[in-house]
């Protein structure tokens, strides 16, 4: 009865149409993930890795190819009944995520990063046995694929429900992956738990925000909400609360202050390849989603949220830069640096204005994300190679004099650091320039000034690492430099190359970003 009461006159529900072609990249990734699960179920242990690895890489590359193809098609459409937006930004972000995912997978593929037997208690007999049997959890591959799929859906989702689902699809595998480090398992598990609890907590906020916005607009479709802003009146409290809580969930994912607390712990505890994936992929995806929500759904509300995001941006930059200065663990330091960079990116997010202005800002953000993503992956890849007895030599003091022992590796790492610091002739500089330029054009000069002051502070701790590596004498029994596997070597080379090329000849990528951003988000 209730149903009829709600529905009023029974009208036939139209059967949904789904543009499989446009969603192909995502579907491919998800499909591959499911295949991966089946492989886990039906193939003998010793075969799995040799099957999983190709599946993962190939599916990602295939998805990338499809994305590129769609890009050439110039697809711009809210697919699947307007649930998934396949437009310029989405495609660009997909491409970026897929590339970075491939690179990260090469890292993940590296041996003895992951626990042999997650269920086994650290230091217990069965763990030793598991290690002696060799091999690791091959479930990692499908998990990664699921996460990547989530990352692709998250920024593309055109209504809040899909966005929520995507958020979880992206996060849940990552929660698990965080806990699977082979060494320092206590830290790893702790990181997993913290990430999980806080993630769930924040997504609850996201969801409640969604609920309130739904209550306000009567729909969770981003475009619908935008329309509602004009029409609906007198419901402002619902709107503000909803938008605020939604913001909490998104800002948590990008790790903006005051929601950044999880980042250092998780980045430090998680297995480094996973950290790399999160630091690059998740960030990009989350920013995509953030932009979509704030520019599309709340586009006409910018008068309200701009000041709020101003405050958040400033806080994020300052917290990130200042706290990083006294860090002693390299991964933790990079985590704080990523917080600072989140702040820099936010300066462009608030710089909305005319269409062209927005397009410029968006393009800047997209370029920044790519540049930063590659540098980060590269940096973490180097981190995986600096080992000592207990696994990676995380503590900065162990890095002293690295430049003397292996100049090349140290040099490359220095390159990434300089890119983070935004020194010209590295990708980081143009990224920073792009977002700051957008911010200035958007009239956020003061914000940019805070930005440069904080990046001067930030430069200090990047430089500090260089000082350690090159100017101070090697520690007596310093860490060993692991002979890089093909994969790691490839990752480092690719990232370094990307950093330099984007730093000297950024035009092609910029063009791509501009074309992608031109038409902004599909409504």
């Amino acid at each position, binding site marked *: 009865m209730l149903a009829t009461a709600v529905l009023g006159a029974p009208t036939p529900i139209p059967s949904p149409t789904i543009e499989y072609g446009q969603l192909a990249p995502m579907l491919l990734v998800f499909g591959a993930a499911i295949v991966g699960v089946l492989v886990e179920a039906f193939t003998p242990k010793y075969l799995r890795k040799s099957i999983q690895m190709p599946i993962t890489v190939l599916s990602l590359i295939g998805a990338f190819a499809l994305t590129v193809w769609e890009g050439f098609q110039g697809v711009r459409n809210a697919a699947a009944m307007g649930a998934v937006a396949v437009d310029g930004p989405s495609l660009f972000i997909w491409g970026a995520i897929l590339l970075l995912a491939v690179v990260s997978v090469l890292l993940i593929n590296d041996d003895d990063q992951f626990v042999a037997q997650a269920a086994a208690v650290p230091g217990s007999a069965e763990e030793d046995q598991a290690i002696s049997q060799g091999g690791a959890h091959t479930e990692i591959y499908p998990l990664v694929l699921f996460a990547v799929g989530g990352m692709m859906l998250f920024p593309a989702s055109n209504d809040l429900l899909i966005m929520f689902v995507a958020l979880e699809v992206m996060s849940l595998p990552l929660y698990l992956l965080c806990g699977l480090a082979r060494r320092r398992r206590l830290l790893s598990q702790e990181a997993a738990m913290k990430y999980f609890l806080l993630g769930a907590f924040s997504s609850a906020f996201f969801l409640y925000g969604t609920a309130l916005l739904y209550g306000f607009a009567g729909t969770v479709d981003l475009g619908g909400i935008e329309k509602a802003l004009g029409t609906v009146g007198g419901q402002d409290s619902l709107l503000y609360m909803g938008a605020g809580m939604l913001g909490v969930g998104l800002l948590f994912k990008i790790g903006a202050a005051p929601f950044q607390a999880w980042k250092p712990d998780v980045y430090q505890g998680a297995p480094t390849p996973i950290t790399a994936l999160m630091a690059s992929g998740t960030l990009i995806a989350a920013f995509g989603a953030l932009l979509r929500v704030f520019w599309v759904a709340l586009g006409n509300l910018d008068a309200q949220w701009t000041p709020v995001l101003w405050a958040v941006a400033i806080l994020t930059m300052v917290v990130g830069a200042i706290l990083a200065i006294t860090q002693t663990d390299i991964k933790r330091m990079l985590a704080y640096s990523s917080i600072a960079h989140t702040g820099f990116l936010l300066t462009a997010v608030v710089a909305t204005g005319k269409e062209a202005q927005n397009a410029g800002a968006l393009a800047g953000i997209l370029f920044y994300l790519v540049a930063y993503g590659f540098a980060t992956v590269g940096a973490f890849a180097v981190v995986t190679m600096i080992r000592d007895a207990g696994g990676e030599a995380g503590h900065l003091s162990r890095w002293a004099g690295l430049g003397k022992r292996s100049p090349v590796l140290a040099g490359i790492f220095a390159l990434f650091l300089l890119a983070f610091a935004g020194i010209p002739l590295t990708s980081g500089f143009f990224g920073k*320039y792009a977002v700051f330029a957008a911010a200035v054009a958007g009239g956020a000069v003061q914000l940019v000034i805070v930005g440069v002051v904080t990046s001067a502070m930030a430069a200090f701790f990047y*430089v500090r690492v260089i000082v350690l590596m090159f100017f101070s*004498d090697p520690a007596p029994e310093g860490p060993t430099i692991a002979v890089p596997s093909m994969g790691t070597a490839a990752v480092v080379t690719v990232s370094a190359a990307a950093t330099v090329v984007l730093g000297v000849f950024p035009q092609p990528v910029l063009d791509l970003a501009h074309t992608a951003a031109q038409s902004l988000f599909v409504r």
Partner: protein
Amino acid sequence: MPWLSILMGVPVVGALAVAAVPKGNAKLAKQLTLAVSLVVLALTLVMASQFDPSGPRDQFSEVHSWIPSFGVHYAVAVDGIALVLIALAVVLVPIVVLASWHDADQPEAKRSVKTYFALILVLEAMMIGVFAATDIFLFYVFFEAMLIPMYFMIGSYGGAQRSYAAVKFLLYSLFGGLLMLVAVIALYTVAGKGTFLQPELIGVIKDPATQKWLFLGFFIAFAVKAPLWPFHTWLPDAAAQAPAGAAVLLVGVLDKVGTYGMLRFCLELFPDAAKFFTPLVITLSVIGIVYGAIVAIGQTDMKRLIAYTSISHFGFITMGVFAMTANAGSGATLYMVNHGFSTGALFLLAGFLINRRGSQYIEDYGGVRKVAPILAGTFLIAGLSSLSLPGLSTFVSEFLVLIGTFQRYAVPGVIALSGMVLAAVYILWMYQRMMTGPTAEKVKAMPDLNLREKFVVAPLIALLIGFGFFPAPLLNVINPAVEQTLTSVQAPQFTPAVPATAEKKGPGQ
């Protein structure tokens, strides 16, 4: 013929080649570096010979679009000012290479010798680029990128406090640079011309307030670089810790980018703001002149002393730049060049002394003249050039700066005059303590300059004396460029109170 690109390309290629030299073979690396730097010098001289002072302002111009979406071009060209500064750089590099022949071998240098020399070449390319750039963005790129090689040269090959000094140097400059970045972005946005080409941006910014803000953005960066009081404290540390050769390039050339930038960008792009801030800048300069000199007198470490003298000299340069008279402008530009030679000679000779005695503290020396007359003599000449004694090129520039400043700002000019006396005190007192009196025990065995070192010092001394008596060649190149700068600033011309006709007229006529 793309002269400037070649000038930049050769050292870069050279750097790669040097870096590729097998580790063991340091000697080859050095010889290669020297050869490359000499080739660059030769090329520069050829280019300079084709430069036409009376011709158009920008010569050997090349413009290629680099990053269209930011309106950035790879645009290089030289006018008289840029030309002489590039010449300064390419003259100093081979000398520095020769002078630092063994610096990198020293125990405190922990890293490969070839890297040091490769860095020098990279730096050379960037120094040429920064002076040649006519695209503001390109200029900024070089302006910031230059820091890195210098940072490594100080940090890896410097003295005991090297990493502190290196970091201080980098962060200080970076901070200034980032403020400039904001101004650069704002300039682009406000101008709205969609290009960074400096000539097209002259006179575009009209609004006074905007001009002032942008001016400050650029100026602070340059003031840190120059360095102008009170942004100077990084220099003594950096210069004192850097190996002598690096110190020469740092103080001799890199810092000139600051004063060059003031002349080229602050004045031309924001003339009204420049005029508005002139009193402030002149004041800071005068403070710098006197303050730097006084602090120099009180130094116990000769490299720090030299660094502080440079702070005093940079005061003169900025004063000359902002006096905005033809004489002062030419003088300031000439000063940049001469100061490079003079301070270069001082630093290198100080380096030789330190290599011999193993201490940079003045009190560890005494009576060196007796055991090493040539070393002491050349040191004295370099010192005299630092106190701008007539007959040495530094006098010409200081005279022009002062006379030019005096035409418009009498009082600052008079105060700045006191720098003459203070200079005499810090140089001659240092000379007295180090070179004269009874020979100190530790110095007794000190050898005099060897052939290599003579080849290092001779050209500098020759240049100082030669241009001291015949500055015309330089001035003829500089003057037109300065005139053009001042016209774009629309600085009023100077007219004497009782114009006395030039031709000799007796009474009654």
